[in-house]
């Protein structure tokens, strides 16, 4: 019985709105409703990318998707990125992949795939979920503070 609550900011804001609404949504993570692209796909790099390539990719994507910078690329990309969600995902991917230890762990989780071997799957899975900006999945039974 895995249960989590997370809030999502949507929908994408039209530019002329004075204040975009933050709408909360409840999602269940079991089964994963949205299987996110791999962190490498988020940064649009190869699995073998060097740390310099990762940084370069992060910066160029930041220039495209950071809410402050969307004006720079208004011709090439739509305004849908102005709420910062894409950038947060990009930044989370960068945080994991630019840290050698976290990247190694993440690579391991990709190698095993999700759902193979409960023992490893949970631990690695937690790391995985965390790195894409989700709270780790938990069993509520074990979370009581006795």
């Amino acid at each position, binding site marked *: 019985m895995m249960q989590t609550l997370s*809030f999502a900011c949507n929908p994408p804001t039209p530019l002329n709105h004075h204040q975009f609404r933050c709408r909360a949504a409840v999602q269940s993570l079991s089964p994963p409703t949205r299987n996110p692209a791999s962190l490498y796909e988020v940064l649009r790099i190869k699995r073998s990318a060097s740390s310099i390539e990762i940084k370069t990719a992060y910066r160029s994507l930041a220039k495209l998707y950071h809410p402050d910078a969307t004006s720079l690329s208004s011709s090439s990309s739509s305004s849908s990125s102005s709420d910062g969600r894409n950038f947060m995902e990009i930044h989370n991917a960068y945080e994991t992949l630019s840290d050698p230890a976290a990247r190694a762990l993440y690579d391991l989780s990709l190698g095993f795939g999700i759902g193979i071997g409960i023992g490893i799957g949970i631990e690695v899975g937690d790391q995985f979920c965390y790195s894409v900006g989700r709270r780790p999945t938990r069993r509520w039974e074990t979370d009581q503070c006795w």
Partner: protein
Amino acid sequence: MSQQAYTVASDSETTGGEKSSSFPEIAIGVDIGTSQCSVAVWNGSEVELLKNIRNQKIMQSYVSFKDEVPTGGVSSEPTHEHEILSGSAIFNMKRLIGRVDTDPVVHATKSLPFLVQTLDIGVRPFIAALVSNAWRSTTPEEVLAIFLVELRAMAEFQLRRPVQNVVLTIPVSFSRFQLSRIERACAMAGLHVLRLMPEPTAVALLYAQQQQHTVHENMGSGSEKMSLIFNMGAGYCDVAVCATAGGVSQIKALSGAAIGGEDLLQNLMRHLLPEYDSIFSGHRLDVSKSMAALRVATQNAIHMLSSQTSFDIDVDLGNGIRLTKILDRKEFEDVNTIVFDQCEDLVRQCLNDAKVEVDDLSDIILVGGCSLIPRVRDLIKSICKREKLYEGMNPLEAAVRGAALEGAVASGISDPFGNLDLLTIQATPLSIGIQASGNNFIPIITKNTTVPARKDLVFTTVHDNQTESLIVVYEGDETNIQKNHLLGYFKLSGIPPLPKGVPEINVCMDIDASNVLRVLVGIVIPGNQQPVTPIMEVRMPTIDDGHGWCAEALNRTYGSTMDLITVQKKA
């Protein structure tokens, strides 16, 4: 760019309807320092500092109340240096705005010539200017607004167009409540705040632009450069570590405190005149001239000691007090050891938070008025183990130039030569969290988190059948929650009566691109997928005055009856 709604509609002259013009207005950059201020704007090809009618680029930050209509340092010029110090003018407003009367920084302001009265109960201090032998009350927001009106008029005159959008630089250590006071002052002056930029991050943007130039010139590697930015003015000291490449500067860490030239000055005045506090307490009219004379002489001595190793002070303070002394640089430095030690702590903390070794730093950038003080320069050089500091910037203009660049970038202006192909990726200067598990501060968004950001944490009840809980939001990094800044509070009701520890209360904090903080709270019962009550969504700060006593009152009234506790993560 999503335009942010004002928090104070009544004070605002501006409405969204005016924004319909097809040509984007370039936001101006404004740096209002504790003692000096300046305005700059992107003129289409570069950043230009605007001058006032007396041809000054850097003006004094003060507002004089001696005439019917208050006037500030932008338009008027004091007939005499001492006029600002006669009690009829308010200055150092940046050290007062958004602070409560229990704040030590407010107490340090009490020795200034104008009136700062504290009752030490956690409300805003009473401030007043001396006008024809009467104390005329005002507020820091009002003073700042009067000043901003003058700056706006000056900019409109120079640019020959209406000015509405501004990017303002702010100290790193400002809380969100203080930022809301700055926004209110801007709204009172008819200005719309596009961005509030911590000062060193504005400098980082200027640095990013300069680096892009050098990379273009030698077709360089484009490799990432780590830099340390140290900014110290009259009121505040800020440090940032940032990684820069390709016009993007990512803020790795920020640190800051309310220490600056004003502290150096006051320490030295007390050293030169040990009876300082007893003579000048009580704002007696007969000593105000003495105080002004001492302040001017001491300020002058500090300036001179930046270029020479000793200085002859000889000043007649009136009332039979004459001060003569040969002050050497060493003595000045010894008197201010505490201030310099604090600077050192800020730099070390910032490097530590950024997880950057000094050997990895490419450039060390010193800006702000106090960056000219030899002791400050030596200190930073020794921490960073460097002989040379970055020399590409005017230390007094760097922050405002950076703000003007941000103003152009955030207004959606592009430059055919790529000079505005810039981006600063900001980080939170302070942690934000709630009170839980008794009197503890539980951070949800930690310090130095990249923004925009969204983080959440799960809490649960501490009593059986607890149906309500208080969500009290603080900002800061002190373990003692009372020392952090209260941002707001609200009650969460409708928790189903269940044994303690069963309901899950998810507290989510969201900071968007405009740096607006929202706190979202939902209640979930394990097994259910939907929250049991509507989710609470609260834009912070909600408090509209520096009510330091609010938290105390809540505590007294409710105790731990509505407490929450963090859900322990099991390995």
